[in-house]
């Protein structure tokens, strides 16, 4: 099953890639891991006239902390996040998500930034980026542009990333004292998208929740920022079962799932409630240093 014909360039710098993308017009696509784009091209769901392959650009594989931020370059693969000691030690929500994206072979190829730029509401990384308040650093013909992960998607497979922009790096604030995070996903089998998944990040002062963010995966046309559910937790104790339940109920109310092979909408909505509670409990334990 071959894709339609296309022109192909593999520039070695971001500037060249931006120029190639501009020259290709709105019909050009950037390819990093290609694990979503290439299947879509084979199925003729996408037929770009030009592929700008960014795999030969040096320096896009950055995975490090600097200036208060975790930097994830455009060529950092899911598998690298899964195997990174830095991630294992400091960003448990990223490790949670990395271990259950697609399958191990696809994880050796697909990238964090590519997943976010793809704008698929079933993508796990957009939810993680929402929960962690990521900055998405892009480069276009007029220079650098920074998008916020929280409102990045505009509709299914559409984002604020301009057709002439390349997402070169995601930057995530380094964890604060008392911060805990978790990602909980239910999938029917390895390789499938989530029936539902929930990512949470909270900050505790003692037992009191002072900051919270909750993202929802594959339960609506967009990656969902469950802001009301998160706001309901502020000032509450992490041990307050009623507050945790209430956040779950509000997160479920923010979801808008469709019935499909992965289950009926009611089931998915209730998954959101339950997964939100579980994620909050795990994030709370981690914030207190009780669980790695």
């Amino acid at each position, binding site marked *: *099953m*071959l*894709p*339609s*014909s*296309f*022109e*192909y360039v*593999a520039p070695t710098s971001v500037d060249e890639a931006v120029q190639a993308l501009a020259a290709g017009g709105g019909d050009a696509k950037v*390819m990093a891991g*290609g*694990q979503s784009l*290439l*299947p879509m091209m*084979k*199925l003729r769901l996408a037929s770009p006239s030009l*592929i700008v*392959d960014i*795999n030969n650009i040096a320096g896009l594989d950055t995975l490090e902390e600097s200036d208060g931020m975790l930097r994830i370059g455009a060529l950092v693969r899911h*598998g690298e996040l899964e195997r990174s000691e830095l991630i294992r030690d400091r960003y448990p929500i990223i490790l949670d998500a990395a271990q259950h994206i*697609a*399958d*191990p*072979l*696809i994880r*050796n*190829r697909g990238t964090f930034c590519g997943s976010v730029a793809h704008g698929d509401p079933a993508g796990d990384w957009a939810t993680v980026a929402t929960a962690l308040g990521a900055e998405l650093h892009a480069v276009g013909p007029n220079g650098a542009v920074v998008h916020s992960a929280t409102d990045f998607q505009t509709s299914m497979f559409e984002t604020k990333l301009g057709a002439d922009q390349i997402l070169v790096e995601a930057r995530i604030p380094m964890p604060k004292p008392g911060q805990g995070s978790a990602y909980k996903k239910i999938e029917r089998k*390895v*390789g499938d998208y989530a029936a539902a998944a929930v990512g949470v990040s909270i900050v505790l002062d003692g037992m009191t929740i002072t900051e919270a963010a909750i993202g929802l995966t594959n339960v609506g046309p967009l990656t969902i920022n469950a802001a009301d559910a998160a706001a309901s937790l502020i000032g509450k104790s992490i041990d307050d079962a009623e507050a945790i339940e209430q956040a779950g109920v509000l997160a479920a109310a923010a979801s808008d799932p469709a019935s499909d092979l992965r289950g009926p909408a009611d089931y998915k909505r209730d998954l959101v409630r339950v997964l939100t509670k579980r994620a909050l409990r795990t994030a709370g334990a981690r914030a207190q240093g009780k669980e790695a």
Partner: protein
Amino acid sequence: MSGKLAVTTTVNGEEHEVLIEPRLLLVNMIRETLHETGTHIGCDTSSCGACTVLLDGKPVKSCTILAVQANGREITTVEGLETADGLHPVQEGFKEEHGLQCGYCTPGMMMTSVALLAENPDPSEDDIRKAISGNLCRCTGYVNIVKAVQYAAKKQQGVTA
């Protein structure tokens, strides 16, 4: 129509220079341009792992990578496993432990196993099952595949099986 591109790639230690269309998939180049047919096309939708090869040492699905992306890179296929000393320990494991029935998934299964053992020479059963979770087998029920990988791990560590 897009023009063809010159690609230089090393497959099983041998350098090849080929002229290919950008839309050609890596698995097509391996099978149809280089005539190494040990790598199988299964689902062709990145679900089954029959087409697994090593790209710079990492197992990937060659139906979901463009052949031009192998330019300047090293590919290892199942044909690259056997050496002058005989079968690779993973190949020997699949033979000794009956790790295959129809054999269709076997090349991909073995490439994933080779990469696992390179990274983790003493994997637990759980490690093995997780590592091969992107490779589907519809015959064996996986039990003997796991045994085959365990056999290879012991063999590579110099333990007499």
